[in-house]
């Protein structure tokens, strides 16, 4: 039989048959490794997760007609602008048209937009009721709903006439709206009330088709975009579109992109810090356990020395036990860490992550190293055992 075979036979027997004590150390290592691999997974996944999260925070780029563009932001011009950004990077796109209409002679601002796109660029919009699903349906801002004292399911008759809007202060000069040849009257059904905490609450939202029907064709006023890209890339797109002179002035929504980066760095350093602290705690726990193990096994150490073991071979055996424990703990921890990261990801970020196989060996190696370091001092104490003394009495 090879010496190495006997070596592993001895240390595995020690670990398996002396379960209770080693179980504590194993638990510490496994927990440490779980946190290590879990947080590392999150550490690498957070940028992606946070990117999506912040995109969810709203649009991070807007297009407006440039000063020299007299046509305004038409759909053709918008189309050209959008071709400058890879399709895969565009999470959502919502062009807006704002017009003023009257409801019971009161002027009200209506916004026509791609409601599908809005749900991407403004996912924080809270809608009481339903999003419009067909033409003729509208979302109404909470504030204006209160002003008009109307609710879900109610209908609103909107009137659009250029004169009426131009002279909103003197509605008396138009004695009969119905006789105004230019006026368009359309009835809309409220499907939901919009609660955003922002000034969207004083607008009425409808589809682009509806607003065209009500107010006629016209260019967009602004287009909000949600682009999934780093701040460098975003700046790149802006510069590119500006230089191409497409009639579009692109602008980044600075607040979001910058806070995205700072929050990320802060989160990552927090994760890093927690990992270090957990590894230290794991080291302390392993060191304490090993210290107790060495004390507990002084007779056995003395016996091995009496049988001719050198100090070195005993150190190697105890380190072997410690490191094997580290490897097993690391293996358990790398999978539990994935489960942990998955749970965090699902609960905090609402998305799943994929297991990075490379993290398994990395976690094992890291916990073997940490365990090894933790064992150094306790294991050195084996050299102090004097066989003549420990083998003497009961």
């Amino acid at each position, binding site marked *: *039989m090879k010496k190495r075979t006997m070596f592993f036979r*001895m240390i595995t*027997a020690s670990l398996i048959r002396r379960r209770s004590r080693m179980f504590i150390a194993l638990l510490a290592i496994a927990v440490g490794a779980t946190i290590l691999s879990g947080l590392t997974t999150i550490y690498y996944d957070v940028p992606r997760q946070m990117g999506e999260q912040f995109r969810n925070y709203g649009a991070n780029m807007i297009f407006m007609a440039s000063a020299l563009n007299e046509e305004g932001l038409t759909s053709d011009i918008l189309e050209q602008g959008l071709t400058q950004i890879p399709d895969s990077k565009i999470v959502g796109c919502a062009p807006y048209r704002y017009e003023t209409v009257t409801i019971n002679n009161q002027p009200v601002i209506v916004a026509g937009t791609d409601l599908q796109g809005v749900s991407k660029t403004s996912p924080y919009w809270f809608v009481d009721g339903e999003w419009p699903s067909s033409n003729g349906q509208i979302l109404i801002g909470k504030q204006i709903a209160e002003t008009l004292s109307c609710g879900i399911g109610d209908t609103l008759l909107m009137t659009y006439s250029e004169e009426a809007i131009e002279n909103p202060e003197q509605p008396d000069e138009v004695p009969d709206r119905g006789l105004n040849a230019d006026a368009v009257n359309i009835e809309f059904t409220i499907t939901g009330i919009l609660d955003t905490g922002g000034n969207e609450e004083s607008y009425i939202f409808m589809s682009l088709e509806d607003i065209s029907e009500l107010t006629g064709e016209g260019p967009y006023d602004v287009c909000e975009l949600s682009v999934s890209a780093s701040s460098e890339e975003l700046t790149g797109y802006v510069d590119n579109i500006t230089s191409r002179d497409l009639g579009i002035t692109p602008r980044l929504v600075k607040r979001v992109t910058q806070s995205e980066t700072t929050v990320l760095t802060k989160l990552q350093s927090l994760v890093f810090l927690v990992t270090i602290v957990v590894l230290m705690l794991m080291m302390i726990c392993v060191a304490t356990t090993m210290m107790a193990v060495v004390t507990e096994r002084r007779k056995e150490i003395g016996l*091995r020395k009496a049988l001719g073991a*050198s100090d070195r071979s005993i150190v190697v055996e105890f380190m072997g036990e410690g490191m094997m424990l580290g490897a097993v703990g690391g293996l358990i921890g790398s999978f539990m860490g994935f489960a942990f990261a998955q749970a965090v990801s699902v609960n905090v970020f609402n998305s799943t992550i994929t297991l990075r196989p490379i993290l398994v060996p990395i976690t094992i190696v890291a916990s073997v190293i940490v365990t090894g370091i933790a064992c150094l001092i306790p294991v050195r104490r084996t050299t102090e055992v004097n066989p003549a003394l420990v083998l003497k009495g009961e």
Partner: protein
Amino acid sequence: MSLLELKDVSKIYGPLKALDKVSLTVEEGEWVAIMGPSGSGKSTMMNIISCLDTPTEGQVLLDGVDIAKENSKRLTEIRRDKIGLIFQQFHLVNYLTALENVMVAQYYHSMPDEAEAMEALEMVGLKDRAKHLPAQLSGGEQQRVCIARALTNHPEIMLADEPTGNLDEANENIVLDLFRQLHKAGTTLIVVTHDPEVADVAGRTIILEHGKIKKEVINSKEK
């Protein structure tokens, strides 16, 4: 040349002389018993012979080498190569089987050899207990495993400090029979005991008192 020669060996603990100028010669193949009251220095002497301890003064020649002068690393090597130890408390590794306990001695000595370890267990009559843990063995059986462990490396000297101290009479006789076999096979035996019956089977009995050899008895009725 004698196998073992102690010349004016003293071990001094502060004011106490645990051994006081002890001289003793043991020839190869001899069976020596050491007796004496508690605290007379028997274990101290055994520890010095087994290279677990060094004397304060004097010479200890083992195979002509003065082990009193060696450093602890060399002492470990000498112990490993030449000495088999048997303890009153057996000192088996509690998480290893009987067989593995024997193999531990082989492991530190040279190469673990399962077949040879099994032979040693067979010699002490424990072949069928090879896979048992110490806790599953009786005291007598544990002592036999301890003897198997000591003999598996074919040591030049077998040292036993109170080997039957924890055993009943039946087990004591089994152990003594094993010693007889080893003695017949030519192994040198030094056995510390309180029990005159155990001392009687040896060829010679040394009686220690206050760290000095008080008396030496040659046992004529050797069996």
